[in-house]
């Protein structure tokens, strides 16, 4: 096939579907109890130098506890897919976890502003960056989920996002249209936070799923954190609701309020005060170091982190806000 144009940045990950098939051939299909602590899951399934994928969208339904644990265990030199990564990206930069990046939305926290530390981490030249659009990066997961090495894609051509990416343009054998060929991305390990899972890893997600259906299928190893454990009978009573089946999953960790300080649809809203505190404290490196020690490195668990920020009382308030209950509305009017 003739290659018309190609991006000049590094292609991270191996798009070869037969290499992935050889891995998946050996992956266990046993429906067995996969419950373990976040600490154990990260020790077992996340290694230095590997490619990491994180589920959710920015500060919405993110596996915060897994990211904190990756920082505590000091993982380094990882590659990361920044597919609308906001607070998760901020954390991974604070931990200097990665030095290879597929970036589509990074360093920002959307309407909240930009992370000074994440920007500095990139501006200091710590990271080899390959650019994509969100959909192109999502399509890389989809190609992997389909077990093919690339998919045709109609965007980014003619821009520097293409130039500083690792796609190539090709001609459609049917119509003669030009397409960008987007290479498959099989992360070594991914972590996704869900609403409900059974002990085997059959998972339910409520609300938007972003790219997590494809990410779960593309990843070689998958860590699930869940708001709550439900029974296998409950899963079987409504199989339509299962988005991630057990055979994709390596570890199941029960982490209530696991997306905190992010949003979890139908459960709790994001803690905007704490996210603003992050943006503010990052401006002062010394203060930031103390802040990280307090909130992450000296915290044993996600419970301890939540207790530092108002515990159950705060979680109730965030629940009011999520559910737009009258309490929240009245508080809003008082402002």
């Amino acid at each position: 096939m003739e290659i018309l144009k190609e991006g000049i940045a590094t292609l991270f990950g191996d798009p070869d579907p037969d290499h992935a098939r050889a891995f998946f051939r050996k992956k266990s299909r046993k429906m067995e109890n996969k419950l373990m602590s976040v600490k154990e899951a990260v020790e077992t399934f996340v290694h230095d130098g590997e490619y990491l994928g994180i589920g959710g969208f920015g500060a919405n339904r993110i596996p915060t506890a897994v990211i904190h644990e990756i920082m505590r265990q000091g993982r380094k030199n990882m590659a990361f897919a920044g597919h609308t990564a906001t607070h998760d990206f901020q954390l991974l930069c604070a931990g200097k976890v990665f030095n290879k990046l597929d970036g589509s939305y990074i360093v920002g926290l959307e309407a909240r502003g930009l992370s000074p530390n994440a920007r500095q981490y990139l501006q200091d030249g710590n990271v080899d960056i390959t650019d994509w659009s969100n959909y192109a990066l999502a399509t890389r997961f989809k190609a992997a989920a389909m077990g093919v090495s690339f998919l045709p894609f109609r965007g980014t051509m003619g821009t520097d996002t293409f130039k500083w990416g690792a796609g190539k343009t090709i001609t459609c054998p049917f119509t003669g249209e030009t397409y960008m060929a987007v290479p498959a991305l099989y992360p070594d390990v991914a972590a996704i936070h869900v609403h409900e899972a059974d002990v085997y890893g059959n998972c339910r997600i409520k609300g938007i799923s972003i790219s997590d259906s494809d990410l779960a299928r593309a990843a070689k190893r998958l860590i699930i954190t869940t708001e709550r454990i439900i029974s296998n009978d409950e899963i079987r009573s409504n199989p339509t609701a299962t988005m991630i089946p057990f055979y994709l999953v390596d570890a199941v960790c029960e982490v209530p309020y696991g997306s905190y300080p992010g949003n979890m649809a139908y459960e709790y809203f994001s803690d905007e005060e704490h996210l603003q505190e992050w943006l503010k404290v990052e401006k002062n490196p010394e203060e930031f170091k103390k802040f990280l020690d307090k909130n992450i490195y000296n915290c044993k668990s996600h419970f301890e982190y939540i207790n530092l920020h108002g515990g159950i009382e705060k979680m109730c308030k965030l629940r009011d806000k999520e559910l737009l209950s009258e309490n929240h509305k009245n508080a809003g009017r008082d402002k």
Partner: protein
Amino acid sequence: MSDYNTMELMVCCAARELVDGSSVGVGTGAPCAAAMLAQKTHAPNLMIVFEAGGVAPLLPEMPISVGDSRTFFKGVMATSMPEIMETCSRGLIDYTFLGGAQIDMYGNLNSTQLGQDHNRPKTRFPGSGGANDFASFCWRMMVITPQDARRFTEKCDFITTPGWLQGGDSRAKLGLPKGCGPYRIITNMAVMDFEEKSKRMRIISINPGYSVKDVQDNCGFELLKADKIIETAHPTEEELRILRDQVDPGRIVIGR
């Protein structure tokens, strides 16, 4: 005529461009305010979609993130990012609003970096996110932005998101879908479109209190001028009332 600020004017201008019965892909901030205002005024059947998967929500307030739970509050569907982007790629989404640190005369946008060294940027911004995708696929792309000569630049340091690329028919030639591209640039000083053949930015409407010279003085490249340049209409009392009381009572976008 009541008092209003420039952000209120820009949001009203943007809202008026959205035709009833059409669809729009929006982000947070002013674009979302414009879409909500349109729905509450002349376009009750405007369908709003968010890139993370929210379809036709009954927005109770403005979202903080394009993936937070407000973006599918009482929506008709909470789906995936690929589903939304595939819908754009099939040609079902009419409008989108985007922005950037730099914009050139063809409406190309930079939201990635200032400076030329890719792995050591002078200033790093978030990058494309879904912007490149929305701009590649939605029929009409619009920008709401303050106007100054540094932002409106001869050449973007990095083209994150395609406008009309090098103008003329370069966009379709490079492989992007035909017939779509930048449509309106709405600033605090003027409204611009793009001349049909060259695809260069052109002043079509001047906001109250500004002149063509003001607009050109605050632009880093030469703007074309429409044969007949009109004065941008003031926001109506009704638009302002709905914008302030229903769309953005917290004054997050429009300020105080």
